[in-house]
């Protein structure tokens, strides 16, 4: 009897189990299971990727060896130049901090970079995410921005959406759930870059008379201190006509790096620096007790 209806019984059991998980938001309950599973599969993923990387890089290694010496000489002079720039930047940063404190400006985040290795990518193409080998134990938190470096320039990769003890999941900027406030520095125009799949982004909310052109660089605007300011997002690849529904123009952005080739990324850990109280002249809207008696 059971043998006859086994298929239907099994289907009923499976469907009920899945529906129960969906109804009671099993995602949050099963998070430890997800993390355990990822912990178990991480080494396998890592081995597979490193093996593929090793075989893929075999041909390049020889030419790299030849150009290594030339690169070394260039870098040595570059380091000398950068040491001077760094010194100057440090002085300017201190000055900036001092002035901000004098004016009583709001707290600004202090970004601490943390290197991470890419362990795996999303199994299905429904979401665009990667998994990295740094987690809460290293100070990673949800919403921390993730960057990479390409041609000596910091490039935006995405944002942490899940952080477990020793690994985290990064939602890539190309995912349709991703939205970043951006700026086109050449034209001083702001907009929102949203993922649209196929390795592209859309630059939304440009005015109809926008001067943005194909080839313009797009950087993060740093609004709300969610992402650091001035990080390279991509380049305008094409422009679309004014939307009849929103009356805004849109542009298609090609990301600055090929996100499928990522092997190492940098997670920017956010530490909010408290702004000190104003030391000299109180601001116009400061409380009365801080003002000098007349």
């Amino acid at each position, binding site marked *: 009897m059971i043998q006859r209806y086994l*298929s239907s019984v*099994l289907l009923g059991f499976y469907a009920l*189990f899945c529906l129960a998980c*969906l109804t009671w938001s099993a995602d949050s309950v099963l998070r430890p299971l997800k993390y355990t599973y990822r912990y178990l599969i991480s080494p*396998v993923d890592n081995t597979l990727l490193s093996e*593929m990387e090793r075989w893929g890089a075999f041909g390049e290694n020889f030419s790299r060896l030849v150009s290594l010496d030339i690169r070394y000489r260039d870098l040595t002079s570059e380091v000398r130049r950068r040491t001077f720039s760094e010194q100057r930047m440090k002085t300017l940063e201190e000055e900036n901090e001092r002035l901000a404190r004098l004016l009583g400006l709001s707290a600004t985040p202090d970004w601490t970079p943390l290197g991470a290795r890419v362990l795996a990518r999303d199994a*299905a*193409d429904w979401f665009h995410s990667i998994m990295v080998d740094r987690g809460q134990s290293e100070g990673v938190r949800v919403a921390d921005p993730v960057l990479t470096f390409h041609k000596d320039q910091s490039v935006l990769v995405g944002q942490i959406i899940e952080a477990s003890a020793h690994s985290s999941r990064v939602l890539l900027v190309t995912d349709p759930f991703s939205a970043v406030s951006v700026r086109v520095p050449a034209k001083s125009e702001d907009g929102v870059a949203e993922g649209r799949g*196929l390795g592209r982004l859309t630059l939304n909310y440009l005015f109809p008379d926008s001067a943005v052109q194909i080839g313009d660089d797009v950087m993060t605007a740093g609004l709300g201190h969610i992402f650091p300011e001035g990080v390279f997002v991509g380049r305008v690849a094409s422009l679309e006509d004014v939307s009849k529904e929103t009356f805004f123009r849109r542009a298609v952005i090609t990301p600055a790096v*090929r996100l499928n080739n990522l092997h190492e990324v940098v997670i920017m850990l956010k530490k909010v620096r408290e702004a000190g109280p104003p030391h000299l002249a109180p601001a116009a809207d400061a409380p009365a007790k801080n003002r000098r008696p007349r």
Partner: protein
Amino acid sequence: VRHRFIFGLVTLLIIWVIQVMMISLIPVGWPTPHILLLVLLALGGRGEVDLAQSLGFFGGLALDVMGVSLFGSQGLVLCLIGFSVGRLARQLNVDKVMTQMAVTGFTTLFFWTVLALLDHLFRPAAPERPLFPDIMALGLVYNVLLAPVGFRLINWWWDFWMDIEGSAFFRSGRKRVG
């Protein structure tokens, strides 16, 4: 039962390895062929209802755990597909290449539709997920074009296991149990 259990387990492991390797080769954001779906259809087409739906259930849950999709959503859809194709195996007659492609195309569309519906129903707080026809069309083409190869490979894989079942190793095992 034991033989099918081992077959399902080994097949699931192979699918997982292929899927992980494949997503590392195809650019992010580009569609990938749904290997698990093709395997389910091929097994269902052979009339293996229990195996197809169980593989869909466990494989789907594994994909849910690996990805960001809601836990249970892919498990449910793939299990339903495995069961339906298995039950309709005789009427469908998936030996013909055109039928294989048609069934794969239809089930791929069904998979996306139900997944989007479940996402809409059980993730109300999240913003509406936009659908990109170009990506979906490419994914559909991948699956449909790979269907004849996938069906043939699975048939070969099944026959290989049947040969093993008939070998001395399994026969001796049965004798010991008996």
